[in-house]
């Protein structure tokens, strides 16, 4: 195999611009998915049967079907489902947040249940309302325990986001394809894309470890 990176060199900034696109999708989807997953997790531990049934069914469907399929359905199906077009970009964010919410809600549910039940009793005995108890007492403790798992999920999302190429979002991967097409070469742009993804994941891992260490300080 003879690789020639000099021809790709001028196109590297073009590929690099995909980082912004990829990160934006992943970040917004990550935050939305996380917020939604908390709601789902609370549904799951709820004593109201309908809510817990809904959350379980939701998780089951979104974990039980391929992400790329969900993405396709949301993007190409948007006129039928929502009655209007949605941009590929919005479709990607929607698909990723709905999908990751399913996974994260399971992590959070386990995290909540792992918090000592004495914490709940102490909060109740002080007359603290359910909502405040969850947001100020139980969830913060659960988050600390599940943070590494959350970070893991986020990293997976970053890599998985490459499937947005299928609906034409010009992320890192799609840009590598386009450059490959333009330059009639295959490996070089892909290797560059691979390197970018790898560096992204390494940075995320580093940020995660730093935050984790800071959280540990109160232990």
């Amino acid at each position, binding site marked *: 195999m003879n690789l020639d990176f000099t021809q790709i060199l001028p196109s590297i900034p073009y590929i690099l611009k995909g980082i912004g696109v990829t990160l934006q999708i992943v970040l917004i989807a990550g935050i939305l998915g996380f917020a939604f997953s908390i709601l789902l997790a609370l549904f799951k531990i709820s004593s109201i049967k309908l809510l817990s049934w809904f959350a379980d069914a939701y998780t089951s469907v979104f974990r039980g079907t391929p992400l790329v399929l969900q993405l396709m359905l949301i993007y190409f199906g948007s006129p039928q489902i929502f009655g209007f077009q949605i941009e590929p970009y919005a479709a990607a964010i929607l698909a990723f947040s709905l999908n990751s919410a399913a996974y994260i809600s399971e992590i959070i549910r386990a995290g909540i249940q792992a918090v*000592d039940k*004495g*914490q709940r*009793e*102490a909060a*109740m*005995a*002080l*007359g*603290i*309302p359910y909502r*405040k108890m969850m947001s*100020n*007492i139980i969830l*913060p*403790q659960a988050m*600390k325990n599940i943070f590494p798992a959350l970070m893991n999920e986020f990293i997976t999302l970053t890599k998985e986001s490459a499937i947005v190429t299928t609906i034409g979002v010009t992320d890192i991967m799609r840009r590598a394809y386009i450059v490959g097409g333009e330059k009639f070469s295959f490996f070089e742009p892909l290797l560059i894309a691979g390197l970018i993804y790898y560096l992204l994941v390494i940075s995320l891992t580093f940020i995660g470890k730093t935050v984790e260490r800071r959280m540990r300080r*109160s*232990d």
Partner: protein
Amino acid sequence: MIKIDNLHKKFGKLEVLKGISTTIKDREVVAIIGPSGSGKSTFLRCMNLLEVPTSGKILIDEVDITDKNTNIMKIRQNVGMVFQHFNLFPHKTVLENLTYAPITVKGMVKTDAEKLALDLLAKVGLSEKANEYPNRLSGGQKQRVAIARALAMEPGVMLFDEPTSALDPEMVKEVLEVMKSLAHTGMTMAIVTHEMGFAKEVADRVLFLDNGQLVEDAPPEQFFSNPTSQRAKDFLEKML
């Protein structure tokens, strides 16, 4: 005043409390003792509805807390509880543990809550630990913080659920001292305990539970020197 009338509690088929009736007067200190599994912790936890009674009534200051229309959150603000395993909030400092509920639940101004908290910490002898996290404290210190946390809500009644059972022996005394001085302030207290010496010294009345029934209800002098029931005699023989 806490008035308990024919209290029953079942866990599934298991009947843990089989009709208990008694009254705890204001400023009274009541020790609840009995063998393990006698239902004494459940009895105590019914008084702030951590356990919901199967039947019977509990009236705190004339308010029926088992009534569905009663705002139990409001009742709990007036009933402090200290747990065997402290249950301090590990992600909050000692000071935050004390101020969180008064600020959140009672809407107290932060500076006022902190002032109150520091007063209470001084009373339990832990002023210098205000900014520590709970995991930096010994068991005895944790339990004293837990007592201060409950007191920060300025409750009318304090419930203690085996407050010294999880402590190393050398730390029991410091916690009992705090409780003793609290009793001297005239706080209404219900204490589930295995500390017979403490019960004898501090309690105005001893409730002896066995097998879900209130077997004896007597002043400590009488109970410890001259118990009427055979079950109490057997129990005391083992304990003393």
